[in-house]
C-alpha cells in the first residue's frame, strides 16, 4: 500500500466509524420513540401519555378473554409476566389471537384505567413447528407458546 492509499483507507474508516457513532447516539436518544408499544408494566406505572392514543403490547392472560353481551365486544387482560392491564375491543380479532399469544393493541386508556382498543394485531413469535410437535410439547408440559421464558 502506498501512502496515498493508506490515507484514503484512514479516511474511509473514519467516515464509517464517525457515522456509526453519530447514528448510535441519535438512536439512543430516540430509544423510547422507536419502540412500537408500551408494556403493561409501563402502563401501570403511568409512563404512558395521557389522553393520547398509544400502543400496548403483551401476552393475552390465560382464561381472561370474555365476550360482552353484544357479541362483538371482547374483554381480556394483557400481561408482561409482571403487571396486567384490562383491555376492551369491539371488532374482528386476527386469526392468531388466542390466550397466551402476544398481541399489540392501539387505542386509549379511559377513566377507569381500561384500555379501549380500536386495532388489535397479533404478534407472531419466532417458533415454527408442525402441529404434532406442538401437541407433543404441550402434552409434556413444556409448550413453547405457554412458556414465557421461551419468548
Amino acid at each position, binding site marked *: 500500500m502506498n501512502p496515498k492509499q493508506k490515507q484514503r483507507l484512514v479516511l474511509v474508516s473514519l467516515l464509517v466509524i464517525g457515522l456509526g457513532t453519530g447514528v448510535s447516539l441519535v*438512536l439512543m436518544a430516540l430509544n423510547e420513540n422507536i419502540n412500537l408499544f408500551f408494556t403493561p408494566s409501563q402502563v401501570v406505572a403511568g409512563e404512558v401519555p395521557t389522553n393520547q392514543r398509544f400502543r400496548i403490547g403483551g401476552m393475552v392472560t390465560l382464561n381472561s378473554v370474555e365476550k360482552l353481551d353484544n357479541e362483538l365486544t371482547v374483554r381480556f387482560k394483557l400481561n408482561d409476566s409482571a403487571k396486567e392491564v384490562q383491555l376492551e375491543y369491539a371488532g374482528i380479532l386476527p386469526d*392468531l389471537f388466542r390466550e397466551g399469544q402476544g398481541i399489540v393493541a392501539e387505542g386509549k386508556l379511559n377513566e377507569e384505567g381500561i384500555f379501549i382498543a380500536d386495532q388489535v*394485531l397479533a404478534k407472531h413469535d419466532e*417458533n*415454527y*413447528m*408442525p402441529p404434532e410437535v406442538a401437541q407433543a410439547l404441550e402434552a409434556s408440559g413444556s409448550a413453547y407458546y405457554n412458556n414465557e421464558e421461551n419468548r
Partner: protein
Amino acid sequence: MSEQNKTWLWFHRMGSPAYFYNFAGLLLPWCVIATVILMLIGLIGGLVYAPADYQQGEGFRIIYVHVPSAWMSMFVYMVMAINGAIFLIWHIKLSDIIARSSAVIGASFTFLALATGSIWGKPMWGTWWVWDARLTSELLLLFLYLGYIGLRAAIDDRRVAGKAASILALVGVINIPIIHYSVVWWNTLHQPASISKFDNPSIHIDMLIPLLCMALAFKLFYLCILLINSRSELLEQEKRTQWVKELVTSS
C-alpha cells in the same frame, strides 16, 4: 513466495478486466446449474414436503421466499459497500463494476422481502404495514438502493459517479446492523430471528432444511446475475481496449 504475496497476486489478477471476464464466463454455467438444482430442491421441499405450521397453517410457506430475500437484501448491500470502499481506496475498476452490477438486484431482493412480508402480515398480524423498527429500517434500505441507482444515473462521468455512489453506499452501511438488531434493541411487531442461534433454532428441522436450500439458491442466483451483469458492464467500460477488440474480432 510468501503466502501474503500469493494472496496479493490473486487479488491483482482478479482485478484485471480481461482475466475476470474469462473467469466469470467459465464460472457462469456451473452457477446456473447449481442455482436451478438448489432452487428446485428448496421449492419442492418447502412447498410440498415441509409440514404445515401449528399456528399459521399453510400460510407460513411464504417464509421460503421472504427470509432468503431479506437476507440477500442485506448481503448484497454489504457486497456493494465493501466494493465501494475498495474502489475508493485502491481505485480498482472491477470493484466499481461489481458494486454497480449489484445495485438493481439488491433493490429487487429488498422489494421482494417487503412485499412478501406485507402479504404475510395481512392475514397473520392483521395489517399490511406497521411502522416498527424492523419494517422501517428495511424500507430505508430500499430507499438507499434507489438513491444509489439514481445518483449513479445522474452523473455522466463514470469515475465521479463511482466515487459519489461508493460514499453513499458506505454511509448507508450503518443501516445494516440496525436492520439486523432492530428486533433485539427495540420492541417490534416483527418477530425475532428464528435461526440466529444455529445450535438450537426455533424452527423445526423439516422446515429448516428447505429454507437453507432456498437461502443458498438465492445466493447463487445473485452470483449468476452478478456475473452476467458485470461481464456486460466490463465490455461496455473497456470497449476501447485491445482485449475487447480482439474478443470481438475473433468471434
